[in-house]
C-alpha cells in the first residue's frame, strides 16, 4: 500500500495518477511502453507508404514534369517545352483521337451489357434454386483466367477462317465476318472478351448487395400488387445504388485502361498498333507505342496524363448518372 503511494508521486510526469495507482510499473518499462504505443502504428503502416512513395507517388509527380519536356533517350539535352506536348496531342494528333474513340467505343460496348446482364443474373441467383453453390462457382470461373488467356481463346473463336463464331453465323445463314478488319466487328469481339471475364464477378457483387435488402419491402410491394418486374426496377435497383456506383467506377477504371485483349487479338509482333488501320488501338496501346516505338518520352507523359484525366472525368460522370437512379422518388 505504501509502495503505491510512494511510486505515484515519483512518476509525477504522468497526468493520470489513477492509472498509475492501478498499475505500478518500473519507469524504464513505462517509457518503453509509451514509445511503443507512439511509434508502432507508424512502423506498421510504413511498408505501404514507402512503396507508395517510391513506386507510385514519385513516378506520378515525375510524369507531370516529364510531360512538360521533350525528354527522349535520343535527345542529348532535355529542354522545357511547356504545354507544347499537350497542344500537339489535342490539336494535331489524329492517331491519339482514333485511340480515344476506340477506347470509349469498346468501353461503352462492353460495360453497358456487362452490368445489365450481371444485374439480371444476380436477380436470378437471388431466387430459390437448387444448386446455389454450383451456379455461383460456374459463373465465377472466368475470373480465374488471365486477360492474356481470355484474349488468346477468343482470338481463335473469332478467327476469320475456321473460327467458331463464323461457324455459328454460317449455321444461321450469315456470311463470314472478318473480325479484325472491320472496326465495329473488332470492337464487338473485344467487348465480348471483357464481358465474359467480368459478368460473373459483377453478378456476385450485385448478389451480395441484393441479399442484404430487407425482404419485408418486397412483401409490402407484393401485397400492393406490384409485379416482379416492377419490384426489380422500383425496389432492387434503387437499393443497389451504392453497389452500382461501385461497379461502374471499377468498370470505368478498367475499361479505359483496356490493353491486353486488343493487344493479343492479333498474333505477330505488330499487336501494339491495334490492327492494320489502328481500328482497335486503345489509349494504353498508343501510350506504349509512343514510349517504346517512337521514344518520345515527354509526349508519352502527356498521353498518360490525358488518359488519367479522362478516367477521372468518366468516373465522375458515371457517379453523377448513377446517383440519379433513385432521385425520382
Amino acid at each position, binding site marked *: 500500500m505504501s509502495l503505491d503511494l510512494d511510486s505515484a508521486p515519483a512518476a509525477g510526469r504522468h497526468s493520470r495518477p489513477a492509472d498509475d495507482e492501478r498499475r505500478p510499473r518500473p519507469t524504464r518499462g513505462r517509457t518503453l511502453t509509451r514509445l511503443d*504505443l507512439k511509434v*508502432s*502504428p507508424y512502423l*506498421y*503502416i510504413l*511498408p*505501404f507508404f514507402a*512503396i*507508395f512513395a517510391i*513506386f*507510385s507517388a*514519385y*513516378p506520378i509527380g*515525375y*510524369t507531370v514534369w516529364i510531360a512538360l519536356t521533350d525528354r527522349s533517350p535520343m535527345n542529348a539535352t532535355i529542354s522545357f517545352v511547356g504545354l507544347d506536348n499537350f497542344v500537339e496531342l489535342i490539336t494535331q494528333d489524329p492517331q491519339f483521337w482514333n485511340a480515344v474513340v476506340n477506347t470509349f467505343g469498346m468501353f461503352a460496348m462492353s460495360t453497358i451489357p456487362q452490368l445489365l446482364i450481371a444485374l439480371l*443474373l444476380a436477380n*436470378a441467383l*437471388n*431466387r*430459390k434454386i437448387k444448386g446455389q453453390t454450383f451456379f455461383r*462457382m460456374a459463373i*465465377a*470461373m*472466368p475470373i*480465374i*483466367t*488471365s*486477360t*492474356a*488467356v*481470355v484474349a*488468346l*481463346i477468343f*482470338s*481463335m473463336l473469332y*478467327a476469320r477462317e*475456321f473460327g*467458331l463464331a463464323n*461457324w455459328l453465323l454460317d449455321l444461321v445463314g450469315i456470311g463470314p465476318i472478318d473480325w479484325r478488319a472491320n472496326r465495329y466487328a473488332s470492337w464487338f469481339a473485344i467487348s465480348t472478351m471483357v464481358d*465474359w471475364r467480368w*459478368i460473373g464477378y459483377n453478378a*456476385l*457483387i450485385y448478389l*451480395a448487395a441484393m441479399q*442484404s435488402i430487407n425482404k*419485408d419491402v*418486397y*412483401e409490402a410491394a407484393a401485397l400492393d400488387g406490384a409485379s416482379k418486374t416492377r419490384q426489380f426496377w422500383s425496389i432492387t435497383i434503387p437499393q443497389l445504388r451504392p453497389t452500382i456506383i461501385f461497379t461502374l467506377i471499377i468498370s470505368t477504371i478498367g475499361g479505359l*485502361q483496356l490493353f*491486353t485483349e486488343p*493487344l*493479343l487479338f492479333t498474333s505477330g509482333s505488330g499487336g501494339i498498333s491495334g490492327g492494320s488501320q489502328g481500328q482497335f488501338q486503345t489509349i494504353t496501346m498508343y501510350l*506504349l507505342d509512343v*514510349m517504346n516505338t517512337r521514344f518520345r*518520352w515527354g509526349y*508519352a507523359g502527356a498521353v498518360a*496524363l490525358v*488518359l*488519367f484525366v479522362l478516367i477521372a472525368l468518366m*468516373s465522375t460522370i458515371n457517379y453523377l448518372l448513377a446517383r440519379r437512379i433513385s432521385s425520382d422518388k
Partner: protein
Amino acid sequence: MTTTTLGPRPSPLAPTKDRPRNRAERLWKASPLTWVGLVLAVILSLFPFYWMIVIASRTNDAANSWPPPFLPGGKLGENIERVLANGDANIVKGLMNSFLVSGTITVATVFFGSLAGFAFAKLRFKGKNALLLIILASMMVPIQLGVLPLYILMAKLEWLNTMPSVTVPFLIGGFGIFMMRQYAEQAVPNELIEAARMDGCSTWGVYWHVVAPALRPAAAVLGLLTFMEQWNQFFWPFVVLADPANPTVQISLRSLNSAYFADNSQIFAGTLIATLPLFIVFILFGRQIIGGIMEGAVKS
C-alpha cells in the same frame, strides 16, 4: 381468443412466424425462364474452358478445320511437351518465375496488410484518417499514369528483365490494408486487446498473439485473391520484361502468339498450363474466393 378458435389460419395482424416465410418463399421461387437463363449463363461461362481442352488436345490441322472440332482429341500430352520445349516461349521458366513472384507478393501482402490493417482498426495515432484517405486514393490511380518514370526508375536500378521489377512495387497495396482493417474491426474485440496489454504485451505482442490469429480467415481470402491477381498480371510485366529469356508465364503466352505462323494447338496447350494452377486453387478454395468477392463488395 376468437382468433385461435378460427383454426390454423392466423390473423394477418398476428405476429406469427410461418406466414411471412411462406409468402417469401412463394415470392422468391425461380420461374422456368430464370432456369433457362441460368443454365445458359453456366454454359457460356464454362464453354471456353472446355474448348481450351478440345483444341489443346488436337493437332493444329484438326484445330483449324471446318466445321471446328467439338470433342477432345488424343494429342494433349504431345502438345504440352511441344510447348514446354518451345525455346521462344520459355514457359517452364515463366511458370517458375510466376510462382516466385506471385508467392512473394502474396506473403508480403498478407503480412503487411494485416499489420497496417491492425494499426488502422485498433491503434490510435495522429493523422490516421488522412493517411487512410491516401491509401484509398492510391487504389484509384491506374499504373499507366506513372508507367514511364517507373520504367526509367527500373532501368536505373538495373531491374529491367529481372523479377524484382515485377515484385517489389506490388509487395503491399491499398486493397489488402482495407480488407484487413474491415475484418480486424469486427473480429478482434477491444477487450481482448486491453486484456493482453494488462498482461504486459507490447504492441507487437498484441499483434502476434491476439490479432494475427483472429485475422486468419481474412488472411486466407486476401492471399487467394492476391495470388490470382498477381499470377494474371500482364501490363507491367509486358513493359519491363521485354527480354524473352526471363518471362512470367503470361509473357510466355504472348511469345507463343507472336510467332508468324500461329500454332493454335500449342497456344491452347500453353493457356491450359497457365490456367491450371489457378484452376486447382479454385476447385479447392472456390467458396472462400466467392465469399471474399461478395464480402468485399458489401463493405466497400
